[in-house]
């Protein structure tokens, strides 16, 4: 990564740019990769959501007016490829796609996720149409709701850290941040679907089965979360080894 940055700076110096800190210029016919370089802190974050730009002049609060004036003088960073102004954009789903991606092949990862969502929706809608009138309201057909709920059900509440005390390492229960919990849930889901499946089942098939199972709090991923909780509970005695 540092080699790339150094090359980036070298290229820009050759083309006579102002400072090594200033980036983000597009010469006609050439586009530099700038997003993963270090931006000068002067640059502001882009705003991809459409609603912000639709607010008429009169309804802006003083902070929003100030922000708009600031944006008209300061340069803005380039937006990443994964951020869209589409109404169907979902940051949690994007994160899941990135975690599933191998060798930078986002197309395949995104394809697997869309097939998974379609598969889940098909199973649920089929069940819905075959169910008697009374049971129809209980069946959840929205694949996005199922995905979010399943992920919630897989998130551990408490985690374990390996802390050294007196020459030995103890597994100490520690609180987890939100990001860490989300990461663990996604990681467990993906590893479970990659490892414990039949050679012939496709990834999207296995993923949809696991997500539907996690939605109803069954399945291997939820089991793994419960085992982590049990380990933490059994190691309660070492909790005072934590100093933060």
């Amino acid at each position, binding site marked *: 990564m540092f080699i790339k940055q150094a090359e980036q700076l070298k290229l820009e110096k050759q083309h006579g740019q102002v400072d090594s800190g200033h980036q983000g210029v597009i010469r006609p016919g050439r586009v530099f990769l700038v997003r993963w370089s270090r931006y000068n802190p002067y640059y502001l974050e882009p705003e991809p959501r459409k609603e912000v730009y639709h607010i008429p002049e009169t309804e802006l609060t003083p902070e929003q007016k100030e922000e708009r004036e600031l944006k008209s003088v300061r340069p803005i960073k380039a937006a990443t490829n994964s951020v869209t102004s*589409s*109404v*169907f954009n979902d940051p949690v789903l994007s994160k899941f796609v990135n975690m599933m991606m191998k060798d930078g092949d986002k197309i395949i990862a995104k394809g697997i996720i*869309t*097939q998974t*969502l*379609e598969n889940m*929706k*098909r199973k649920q*809608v*089929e069940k*819905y*149409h*075959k169910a008697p009138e009374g049971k129809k309201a209980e069946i959840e*057909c*929205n*694949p*996005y*709701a199922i995905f979010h709920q399943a992920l919630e059900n897989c998130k551990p509440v408490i985690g374990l850290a390996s802390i050294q005390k007196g020459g030995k390492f103890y597994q100490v229960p520690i609180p987890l941040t939100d990001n860490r919990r989300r990461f663990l849930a996604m990681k467990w889901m993906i590893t479970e679907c990659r490892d414990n499946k039949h050679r012939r089942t496709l990834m999207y098939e296995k993923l949809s089965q696991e997500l539907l199972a996690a939605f109803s709090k069954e399945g291997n991923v939820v089991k793994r979360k419960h085992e982590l909780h049990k380990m933490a509970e059994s190691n309660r005695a070492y909790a005072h080894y934590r100093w933060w």
Partner: protein
Amino acid sequence: MELETRPETFSIFRTQENDPACQSEQHLGQYYTVPPSHFHTVFPHGLPPRYQQQVKTFNEGCVMVRQPALELISHLKRADYSKPTLRYLLYGVKGSGKTMSLCHTVHYCSTQGWLVLHIPDAHLWVKNCKELLPSSYHASRFDQPIQASNWLRNFRTTNEHFLSKIKLRQRYVWTKRESTEEGRPLGELVDMGVSRVKSSSDVVGAVLKELRLQAGGTEGGFRLAVAVDGVNGLWGRTTLKKEDKSPVAPEELTLVHNLRKMINNDWCGGAVIATLSQTGSLYAPSSAYLPQELLGEEGFDSMDPFVPVPVSLYSEKEFESCYLYYLDRHWLQHSHSQTEEGKKEMIFLSNRNPSVLERLCAFL
């Protein structure tokens, strides 16, 4: 698979007129339900695979009434069946609904009591063939037993009631000890083709010949509809190879040879409805959709003269209807897909192309 029959309710995108013969311009853009009893007999093998999945999910088979299908049906109603057969060709960009229009027309022919000869995809006969036997009837031709027997089985499901009525006009000899006599019902021939897989391609040829001879007849006459999907596969190249690795031309396959004779307009008493298809085609660029490009010179000369029927993308009214149908079947689940913003985005992303819209709505 049990398809449900629903009580009649009024809705703007559905019509209660389930008989294709009675549908007219006022039903354009509306969905009609194919009755569950007809479904497996009329369409054992014609529908696109994604549509079959949709039928299974929604528990009902609904087809949109569109302009190309209505045009075809009106031509079929007014044609003169004592003259040589008219050939109709459906063409359009990828995913615009050619196969579905063909299936709608096949349903019409079926309800009118015609004998339907539906070849689901001619490209399946010119590629991916595991067994290629040299033909016993003609030395330089090749037989495809698996494809022929599959097709005969589906043909038998579609046209059960005709099989006992049509009698053969010629004696067919299969081997030294086996032959089918004159005057036997067609059903016997078809059963023989299904059970004896080795001679099934020749049986297909015999069936096609008999139907061609008897279609326009005055005594016990029936109308014959030949529906071919992906007709551009019959001319052009194949991916099959002989044992010495030289390529097989389509004329050298018995099935293709007999089907080409069927598409010629030298018989009367029926119609030939064909669809072009780039999706399964071999050695054709993906942007090609016009008849001249896909059929090639040879194919165009054989099909000429034909009635071209263009199939376009969804109009605004048809898009609305499709959107409301998906909403009704609980297929559009994303909270934003039910808003105006989401709808505008769907129009932009799919460009109103029916198959692209279907794939888009699948994960929304």
